[in-house]
Every structure is written in structure tokens, then in C-alpha cells.
């Protein structure tokens, strides 16, 4: 048995492998005998490369239900979030400097707002209830005459909690406030139809939906007042909104990933749900078990649990070769307890014991069963080793 054979990967919220069909679309675009050209070139090799970009733009637009001209290609959701938030805040700064977001956002959002706070913007941080859900009334109450931008994510990357984008966006639209949604975890997984939704800016990334790392997109609604100042300047690509040579193979790969996600969304969702439910059934009876985040408003691909009196870092190591996450995918190096779980009211200790299981298209029943057994065993072993707690 090789080392590899024993690894069980339940960390699809951190990143996914690239779908083989996507790899097949990308590979020829690297090669000399394929369409490797620079889409900015006017000649035939360049034009052929541009055709791949245009096809992909169409595919992503179809998945999102938006116009092709409303999409800007970026390097990933981090860049999309920054472009949306910095870009919109700066563009509308002379109308007002009040912004709204939540402490449960991904750092690619919350860190940006912290930077803006230092630059003279005022940020209201709205807290969710203990299930992670934001009450639209809270948003309504927080909006002021000088509010310019609200940023609230669709699916939370740690807990899978889904916010009511429709309701939150409607409030923003009524008050002429821009509404940005970080949809890195939901695009291609939950249905979206931006043409009919009150969303102005929406961030996405390919590598969470079986596309390649290094490419993302920002949706910028074609509406008056909805505009982002570019972060970078240069060769005029994408009408100057995001310059730089278009990464044709990555963009084509994202397009194909979008096409696949759209056509298989329903069956994928059902699969994720059955995997998550199976895992939860396997561990829910354990002593001191707590599920983090709403059960009713949750994306079926993520299950986040805490457990009493088990130390998180040791738990993670004891779970190997089961690959899962503590805290956010993107800052799992850090030992600090998750700010998302803290915002849900979890103690430091409970937040620190949290494990995020996340499921994907390739997840098999046997892997879930392995995870159940491993989790029970690891918790049992660590509890066996622990001394009695202080009286």
C-alpha cells in the first residue's frame, strides 16, 4: 500500500482538484501546436486565443446569469474581493465614507475593510446570531445616508452558513447602496441568477469549483453608479478594468468548469448533502459534540463541528491521514481561534477544537465512513490521555 492510498481528503472548501475535462480543455492551450497566443495580438494566433476567452466568458456568464460585459477576469477571489471593495469604496468616496460588513467574512474581505478603516473610512461590523445568520433588519438599521457599500458573503467558508442575499441586497438597492457578495464558496454549487438579483458586485474563483488556481472573476453590474476603480494599470486589457495578458488556458479552464458546474449542479448538490448527512449521523451522538452554524441555512458541502475538552491542534494531527481543516482554509497556519466561530459565540476552547469537513464531487461513502471512525477514535484517544480537568 502506498502512502497516497491512505489519504482521505475532506477539504474541498480549501481547494478542489481540477476536473479532468477542464484539464483537457486547458492542456492544448499551452502548447506550440495549440492556441497559445496572446489575445491582445491582432494576428490569427492572437485572435484564436481570444476566441477561447470569449467562449469562457460566455460560459461563466451563463452560470451566473449575467451579461458577458459584466465580467472581469482576475487572479482569484482575493483579487476580486479587493477590486470590488477597494475599487467601489474609492470610486464612491466623495459621496460618503461609511461601509458595512461582518466579522465572519473571509480575510480577503475583512482585512480590506480594516485597511479602509485606517484610510479614513468608517466601517460598521454586523454580527450574526449564534447560528451565523445575519438578520436583514440589522442591515436595515445600520445603513446611513452616507453608506456606500455593503459586503456580505454568500456561503461562509468555515461553517457553510448561507446568508439571505436576496433580502440583504434588496435593502441595499432601495437605499442606493452598492452590494458586494463574496461567492467564492457558492458559485457553481448553488443557483445564482444575477440578472434578477439585487447584487452589484460578486467575487468568484475557479479553484473551489474544479477549475485551476490563479484565475477568478468579478461581476460588476451594468448599472449607473456601479463602478470600481482599478487596482492596477497597464496595457488596457479588459477595458482597463484589470490589465495584464489574459491567462487564456486558465480562463478557458474556468469557463469549462462553469459549464460543467451548471449542467451537473443538482446531482452534485444531492451528493454533497448525502455525504454530509452521513458524516453528521456518524458523530452527532458523541459526548460534547456541537455543530457550528445554522443547520437550516447551510451549504451541504461543509460540516463544521466543535467538541468539548479536546485540543484542536492535537485533534488535527491525530486525524491524519484524514485531511480536514481547522479555522479558515486560508489561514490554517495560524493558531488563533477562528474569528468566525467567536462571532457565533463559541468559547476560545470550543472554537479551537473545531474541525471543518468539506465534501466534493469525488467524495465516496467509504471516505466518509473512514472519517467517522477516525474522528471517534482520535477524540477517544486524546480524552484518554488527558488528565482530569480542574474541579
Amino acid at each position, binding site marked *: 500500500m502506498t502512502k497516497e492510498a491512505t489519504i482521505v481528503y475532506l477539504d474541498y472548501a480549501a481547494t478542489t482538484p481540477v476536473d479532468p475535462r477542464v484539464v483537457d480543455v486547458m492542456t492544448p492551450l499551452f502548447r506550440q501546436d495549440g492556441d497559445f497566443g496572446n489575445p491582445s495580438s491582432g494576428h490569427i494566433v492572437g485572435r484564436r486565443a481570444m476566441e477561447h476567452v470569449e467562449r469562457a466568458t460566455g460560459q461563466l456568464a451563463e452560470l451566473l446569469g449575467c451579461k458577458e460585459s459584466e465580467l472581469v477576469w482576475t487572479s482569484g477571489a482575493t483579487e476580486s474581493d479587493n477590486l470590488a471593495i477597494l475599487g467601489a469604496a474609492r470610486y464612491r468616496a466623495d459621496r460618503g465614507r461609511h461601509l458595512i460588513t461582518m466579522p465572519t467574512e473571509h480575510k480577503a474581505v475583512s482585512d480590506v475593510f480594516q485597511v479602509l478603516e485606517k484610510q479614513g473610512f468608517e466601517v460598521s461590523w454586523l454580527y450574526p446570531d449564534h447560528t451565523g445568520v445575519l438578520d436583514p433588519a440589522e442591515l436595515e438599521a445600520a445603513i446611513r445616508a452616507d453608506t456606500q457599500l455593503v459586503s456580505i458573503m454568500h456561503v461562509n467558508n468555515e461553517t457553510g452558513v448561507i446568508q439571505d442575499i436576496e433580502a440583504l441586497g434588496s435593502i441595499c438597492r432601495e437605499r442606493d447602496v452598492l452590494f458586494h457578495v463574496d461567492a467564492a464558496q457558492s458559485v457553481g454549487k448553488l443557483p445564482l441568477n444575477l440578472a434578477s438579483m439585487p447584487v452589484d458586485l460578486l467575487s468568484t474563483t475557479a479553484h473551489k469549483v474544479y477549475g485551476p488556481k490563479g484565475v477568478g472573476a468579478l461581476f460588476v453590474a451594468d448599472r449607473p453608479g456601479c463602478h470600481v476603480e482599478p487596482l492596477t494599470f497597464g496595457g488596457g486589457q479588459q477595458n482597463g478594468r484589470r490589465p495584464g495578458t489574459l491567462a487564456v488556458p486558465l480562463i478557458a479552464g474556468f469557463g469549462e468548469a462553469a459549464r460543467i458546474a451548471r449542467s451537473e449542479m443538482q446531482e452534485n448538490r444531492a451528493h454533497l448533502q448525502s455525504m454530509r448527512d452521513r458524516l453528521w449521523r456518524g458523530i452527532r451522538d458523541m459526548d460534547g459534540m456541537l455543530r457550528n452554524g445554522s443547520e437550516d441555512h447551510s451549504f451541504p458541502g461543509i460540516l463544521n463541528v466543535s467538541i468539548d*475538552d479536546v*485540543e484542536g*491542534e*492535537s485533534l488535527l*494531527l*491525530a486525524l491524519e491521514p484524514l485531511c480536514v481543516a481547522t479555522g479558515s482554509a486560508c489561514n490554517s497556519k495560524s493558531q488563533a481561534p477562528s474569528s468566525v466561530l467567536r462571532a457565533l459565540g463559541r468559547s*476560545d*476552547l470550543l472554537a479551537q477544537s473545531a474541525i471543518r469537513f468539506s465534501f466534493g464531487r469525488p467524495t465516496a461513502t467509504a471516505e466518509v465512513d473512514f472519517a467517522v471512525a477516525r474522528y471517534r477514535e482520535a477524540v477517544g484517544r*486524546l480524552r*484518554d*490521555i*488527558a*488528565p482530569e*480537568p*480542574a474541579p
Partner: protein
Amino acid sequence: MTRDPYSARVRELFGAPDHAGDLEKPAARVQIIEQGVRVALAADIDGDIIVGLRFRAWGCPHLLAGAEAFCREFEGRPVSALQAFGAEEIMQTLPVPREKLGRILLLEDAVRSLGQRVRGSPDAGKDTN
């Protein structure tokens, strides 16, 4: 250059904590709790020789591995050796990242305290919480 935060030795000690558990009638026992982290040590003595060591711990993998390393190393050595136990050596031999020094110092405290207990020293201050 690998980013694995755990050395092969830490993984081995963590994965096979043979000395985790209790002694039936230990000659001495200590338990220390600080900021949620807990370490308990117990020793059996035969004359001047430590014949059995066990630990219990709640904390990060380096703490658990450090405690196991201590037990393995000091069984069969004279009681006086306990005074020589130092966090620094554990930090370097496992090794343990600098930012976790505090937890290994907790282990050091526990060992020192155990040493005092074993010799029946009345000033073993930290043993009861």
C-alpha cells in the same frame, strides 16, 4: 524546507504515547494547569531509581510528545537526574518551535515539581491545582 510543523520524532512520540496513563500507586504525582493546558506526571521509585513514569496531558502535539519523551528518557535514571531536566533540551531535540516555549516550560515546571515530591520536599508548591 518542508512546512511540516512536526518532526519525525514528534510524530513518533505523539503517535505512540506508551507512557500515557496512570501508575497504580505512584510514589509521587503532580498536576499543573495553566491557560487551559494541563500536564500530570506520576513516578514510581525503587530506592534512588525511577522505575516507572507516566503522564497525562491536554494540549498541543508538542506538549504531548515532550511529556512522552521525558518519560521514556528518565525511566531507569536516578531521582537526582530530574533536577537536570530542562525545557531547552526538549525544545532542541524534538524540536519544538520557539513560540511554544511556554508549553514546554509548563512541562519543566511539572518535572521539577515531581522531583521535589519524589524526595518528599515540603516546598513542592505547585502540585495541587
